[in-house]
């Protein structure tokens, strides 16, 4: 199983002093079955005044902190070493018909299905309308096994939409993505999520990193050296299956998970509200290096 070193740096420079600021970070490592964090550290400058770590409803470790001294420079750096493996994908034709899953999700009978149902409804950044539903239905013929339909949907999004940085605003809704058929990983994940939810199926937004490959014969995976986002759907009897519509692959040992939620808004890596500051410049640097 590959081991990566990940460095992630976010730096703000302000032209006027910031008097105080409050932040929320979704960048603490999360242990999941297919990935194990070996080490992790965070460095914040200036030093936070108040610091609170907690688990959110999605199981992510959230860091809330404030900086209450005047500053014009703010940086948040994380360094982690993580071992990542493949999940076991379900077999084609062997999963439950999708309509049965939708019913289970509406009437949950276990902690697991109740948890999954949290991701089955419209959320602030992943809404849907009839156009989204109709687009999804092309793959969801009656009685079709959920995994088969979801995989096909992922491939269709990959084929139909063009990866175009700057084409969309942050937080564009699935129906807008569907109309424009362009966007970035976040948008394609949101579209996939909107499609599944329009059929009352659970789907969550996964935030993380993607391994970079040098361009040697094979096509370069998009989203290199930046944060990445993909989707994950719940298949009863099997568990969560990660689908990356940006690259038309299942989530595997090149997808490193940071956090998940209903949509981008739940797991934005670092957000803040500042008082003062004037204009700012932002620099984000991500490095994913294969250690062994």
């Amino acid at each position, binding site marked *: 199983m590959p081991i990566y070193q990940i460095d992630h740096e976010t730096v703000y420079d302000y032209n006027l002093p910031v008097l105080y600021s409050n932040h929320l970070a979704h960048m603490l490592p999360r242990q999941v079955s297919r990935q194990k964090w070996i080490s992790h550290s965070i460095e914040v400058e200036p030093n936070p005044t108040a610091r609170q770590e*907690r688990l959110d409803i999605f199981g992510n470790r959230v860091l809330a902190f*404030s900086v209450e001294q005047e500053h014009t420079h703010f940086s948040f750096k994380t360094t982690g070493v993580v071992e990542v493996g493949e999940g076991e994908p379900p077999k084609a034709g062997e999963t439950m018909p999708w309509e049965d899953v939708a019913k289970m999700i509406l009437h949950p009978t*276990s902690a697991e299905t*109740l948890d999954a149902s949290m991701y089955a409804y419209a959320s602030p950044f992943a809404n849907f309308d009839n156009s989204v539903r109709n687009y999804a239905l092309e793959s969801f013929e009656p009685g079709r096994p959920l995994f088969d339909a979801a995989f096909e949907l992922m491939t269709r999004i990959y084929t139909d939409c063009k990866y175009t940085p700057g084409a969309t605003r942050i937080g564009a809704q699935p129906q807008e993505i569907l109309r424009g058929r362009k966007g970035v990983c976040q948008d394609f994940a949101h579209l996939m999520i909107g499609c599944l939810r329009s059929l009352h199926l659970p789907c969550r937004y996964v935030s993380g990193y993607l391994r970079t490959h040098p361009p040697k014969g094979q096509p370069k995976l998009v989203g290199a050296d930046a944060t990445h986002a993909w989707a994950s759907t719940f298949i009863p009897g099997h568990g969560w299956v990660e689908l990356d519509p940006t690259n038309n692959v299942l989530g595997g040992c090149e997808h490193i998970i940071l956090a998940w939620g209903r949509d981008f808004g739940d797991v934005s890596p670092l957000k803040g509200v500042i008082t003062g500051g004037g204009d700012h410049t932002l620099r984000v640097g991500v490095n994913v290096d294969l250690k062994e």
Partner: protein
Amino acid sequence: MYWDMNCVDTENIFINSLSSFSKEEFEHRCRRLHNVLDENDLSSSMSGNHKGTDPVPLVICPEEWKKLEEGIAQRARLFNALAEDIYGEQKLWKNGKLLSSLLFANPDFLQVAWKVKPAFGTFVNLAAVDVARQSDGTFVAIADHLQVPEGLGKALENRIGVSRAFPELFRSMRTERLAGFFKKLLDGLNELQESQDNHDKGKVVLLASGPDNARRAEDAVLARYLGIPLVENDDLAVRNLQVYMKTLMGLKKIGTIFRRVEDGMCDPLELRIDSGEGAVGLISTARAGNVAIANFLGTGVLETPLFKPFLSEICKELLGEELLLPDVETYWLGNSADAKRVLAEPEKWVFKKIFRDPGTFKAIEPKAYASMTTTAQLALLQTIENTPEEWVAERSVDIATDYGYRNGEVDQAIALMRFFAVNTKSGTSVMPGGLGIFQFIDKSKQESAAAKISKAHILEDEVLEKDIWVLSERPVANFSLLAPADQAIMPSRAGGDLPSRAAENLYRLGRDLSASNMMARIARGIAVRLSDESWTEMPELSWILKAGLADDSLSMLSQDPENALRYFILRKDNKNGMQCILTEIRDLAVQLRDRISEDLWLYLNGFGVAEMPAGAGAAALLPYLKAVLSDSAAVAGLAADSMTRGHEWRFLEIGREIENAIRTLQLVKSLLSTVPADETTNLRLLQAVLEIGDGLMTYHRRYGGRLQVAPVIDLLLSDESNPRSIAYQIARLQEETSRLPGNSSGEAAFSPLDRELMRVLTDLRLANVEVLAETVGYNRENLVKLVDEEIRNVERIAETISRLYLNHAPRSGVVHATTTEVSEV
């Protein structure tokens, strides 16, 4: 019996007692009620379509109340337990009986509140429920309000009005008092802090919605009655996981927030980023257990009608009890069998969306349905059939007939009742009384029984309010929050707790009061002259016109001065006109409602609201100007008489003095900087400047009838015994600012503010009026130089005060706040 009783048979003791009043006496009582309510001005601001309060209260007899009270209390406990489960274990959802959409499809489910524990496990501190009495005498719950229940302030106001109008009935009928309930609410808010680690007790504050929110008026009523400070988001600061109130004396710790803003608006960091209300970091602070919030975050989730079909089951599950006060029969249309039945006879149901609708969707009632075109009806049914899981249907309620008073008759009406309950550490208490909302039955329209039900949602229609009298079997003890039987009910309000925002509003009010006064005096000077037939021969008029109305075009001034004057005095759209200032005074009064006395409020609320001049001619303007000036005098006198000499008074005074100084300097400059060619004009100008500067009487007493420039300048600029002089204003400013925090004259060195004030005062004291009166050509250059210099100085002083103490962006918007003066409630 003097009465036309349209009702033949009633058990309402109040109505049966009316025969003891003559009709005239009853009308007199009604006027008394309306006077009380008008003074408070709550009704008109609470909702645009409110038509007043009915003199006839709803009466609930003791046996009936006992059952009802139990039912209301049970619902308050039940919803609290439900919130605890929703944000905790979610055990109700793990057996497949309840829909997962009840939790996770609801936009009011607050993810960030998950597993956060409120103090004593109390999520719902204050609950409200709308109840209807059905024709068969049973009660049914229509809707529950569990996040920011509205109407408590209105109930209080109606009680004050009706109990004052009919004090003898109020007592003889043994009506239960409301004050005890408010004490429990306040005690409950206080005790929430007991669970906080810190020994340093924080304040209990009411976090109000913004000034343009319809609820704001009621927020002010509650804050005043409970005796807790009303704060806005600007007043709050979160530092190191602790919430503080920004005051003139620095940050004051807050222990409990009685919030009147919605869940999503409480913290822009973790909730809606665009929320103008609330405080950044509030969620973290609440999580850390450092501040109590009532009602707790996330309680909005409880308000969906989708709980109704399941509530009696939930009650058994969570409390192990039967539901005592049942809900109106409700079906979720996502269940196809129910949907089929309901849609077979759509005219008998009320259709509601299950969740808060971001659009403007309102419940569709039978009456509304019946009035739709066939096409529209089909379209609605189609919408419901397409998305049945988004809808519930409620059965029409057959509401029992009640009574109200209109046009000299007691007439039939139907009413809804909103009741309130508090959950505290020691248990649940229900307010013995409430807010009645009712409509008369329109007999002329022959309303069918089916149409009657639409009144179940009369909250949204044109409605009247009613007090609700719960009768007691035993004599009722006299108890009021304002005359406490034991101590510690009304925390005293020390001057140091003045929030910076309130200080700013008082300062602006002071400035506006002075500005309006000077404007009215100049306008009067012009109007008096214009109303003289020989005004064209008054040479001084053009000077005064320029002094007062210089912002208007000068050509208009000379061609049609009367119209220019009217434009200045009356036009609301004239940004430099008097009406703008008058409107701002009234708006500021509203924002300061919880800090100013009753009488002052009455004057400020009606400031400049006099009868507008009728007819042409400048003379017609004089009565209006007189009214503005007498409002001005009344406010000055009342403020001086009734305000304690704390920081509130201080900022009002500082604002007045700064504006007075600037305006008087400008007056002197515009009337005395140049010298007219002839002596008559000169004398008339001196006369005018004294008249407008309010120094004529003093001058004549001192110097007799001879007008000369030097003594006039002395009187207006340097004479510290003249309260209208600039020197006097500056000396007063020095006195008041020396008492401001951090500007104490006890320090060895003078503060920059002191120094600036001393410079102006010294300039004025050392000024040689003979030199100032000297002319070079037609100009009094020395006077102009001094006046210009001092205008700049005073403006700089104003900036310094703003920077040091105020420094809040002014908030826009208008609210109408209200009063509470409580006798027996």
